[in-house]
């Protein structure tokens, strides 16, 4: 069985003046996969994600996301992806229910669909009691789960998560990953960045960016063997440190 590829990247480049932020990267992400996109600060991850989500055009190379060209079919692309960043894009001065309705509307769901989705989200997160509470009054851990549910409200083919669990307590962090697994069972592909290396180990495959290049790619097991490491933390440090004791 050859799995469908929801992200195809070929020799993608982005330069800012003389600075090469993303240097000829190529990789694929398969449908239903949890793909961990790792790298040091300043390695080019954010620039790459901006290109893949249709926010920034590439300097050269080509890529399709959910079947759409990242430069030529940006609107179609955006309709078919979800995005959640470390600074959640929820409106603090709207209630939980209003936020869901707002995002449902943005993604073109009908009133009937919005109603159904609202019930679904509230039930799944068990937050019916606070549906009329302002987001600003909701604890961080819950907000994170809400932001994720809102990011996939339109059943996108793929969802991009940029450091989604930064700062939350260890139990909430694990509950968040359960939501991620659930989403993949519904066929959604997950593209995630994180600085928690135990979370990297929850991914099906991982790529590691160093100075604009993808220096390694593979399953956790493959990387551990290849870099003779006992965990991803070690792999990360070996790859990110240049030529040191490897």
């Amino acid at each position, binding site marked *: 069985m050859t799995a469908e590829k929801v992200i195809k990247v070929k020799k993608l480049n982005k330069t800012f003046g003389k600075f090469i932020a993303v240097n000829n990267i190529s990789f694929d992400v398969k449908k239903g996969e949890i793909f961990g996109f790792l*790298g*040091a*600060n*300043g*390695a080019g991850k954010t620039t790459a994600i901006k290109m893949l989500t249709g926010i920034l055009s590439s300097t050269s190379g080509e890529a399709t996301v959910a079947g759409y060209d990242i430069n030529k079919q940006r609107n179609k692309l955006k309709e078919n992806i979800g995005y959640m960043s*470390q600074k959640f894009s929820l409106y603090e001065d709207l209630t939980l229910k209003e936020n869901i309705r707002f995002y449902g509307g943005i993604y073109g769901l009908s009133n009937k669909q919005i109603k159904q989705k609202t019930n679904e989200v509230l039930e799944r997160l068990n937050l019916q009691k606070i549906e009329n509470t302002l987001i600003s009054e909701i*604890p*961080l*851990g819950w907000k994170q789960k809400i932001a994720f549910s809102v990011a996939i409200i339109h059943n996108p083919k793929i969802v991009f998560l940029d*450091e989604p669990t*930064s*700062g*939350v*307590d*260890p*139990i*909430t962090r*694990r509950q968040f*990953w*359960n939501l991620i*697994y659930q989403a993949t069972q519904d066929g959604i592909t997950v593209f995630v960045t994180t*600085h*928690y*290396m*135990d*979370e*990297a*180990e*929850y991914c099906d495959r991982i790529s590691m960016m160093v100075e604009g290049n993808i220096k390694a790619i593979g399953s*956790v*097991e493959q990387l551990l063997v290849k870099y003779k490491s006992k*965990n*991803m*933390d070690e792999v*990360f*440090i070996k790859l*990110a*440190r240049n030529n040191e004791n490897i």
Partner: protein
Amino acid sequence: MIKIENISKNYNNVKALKKVSFNVKDGQLFGLIGPDGAGKTSLFRILTTLLIPSEGKASIDNFDTVKNYKEIRRIIGYMPERFSLYMDLTVQENLNFFATVFNTTIEENYDLIKDIYQMLEPFKNRKAGDLSGGMKQKLALSCALIHQPKYLLLDEPTTGVDPVSRKDFWEMLQKLQTKGLTTLVSTPFMDDAELCDEVALIQNGEIMSIDSPKNITQKYPHKLWEIITLNNYHTLKILDNFTNKISAFAFGNAIHLACSEKTNKEDIESFLAQNNIKAKSIKIINPRIEDAFMELMT
């Protein structure tokens, strides 16, 4: 010494800190470990004299944080979570600025910041705003050290920082400790706790435990097993029905399973086998800070 006695802080109806007490002894590297919203930043703002507690009192080097705020500001270096750097000034201009504010010069205090500043030197004419996260963090630390403080207060210095820079940063803190600095540092990364002399675990404004990292993990009350299976997500669900289970959490590519004392390896194996799960490995392990933290939370 940093002395915190029965500190509470309320914001309207929100109780951010509830009767928090602990001491940081001179020369210690002390970690305040807890998630966002636990009250860490409120406590830092009280200690750095930027916020007045609703109840209780705190002192640094016997100076009261309310009455003697001016004296305290001279002896502490403070690095807030959002680094207080001037993004439109260069690396060197930032450092110069902070030195001037404290009536000193870079040269006078170069010894303390030397190791850190050397890593920044190639970029000394670059604007702070154009530095990578790891470099910004190093510059912010240099600025907090430029007046040779006795006490260093770092509020989540490693949030959003990659594992390599984080490791470097902790090595810098340990080095500073050898120069006699007392450091209070907060972090949501449980693994960082293991590098401190003593830690306070904080959640919902309350201290859950204060001890050395070693003692905190030793106090963990259950037998802890590490299980590796092909599909840990599925295994975790199945383990919900394991009667000997006290708790089960994913930990990277493994599961940490806390069981009742009498449980042995065969019990776990046979339970998994009944559910058609074959374990790649099952073994007893020592708990980590994160295990202890989750145990205290529940």
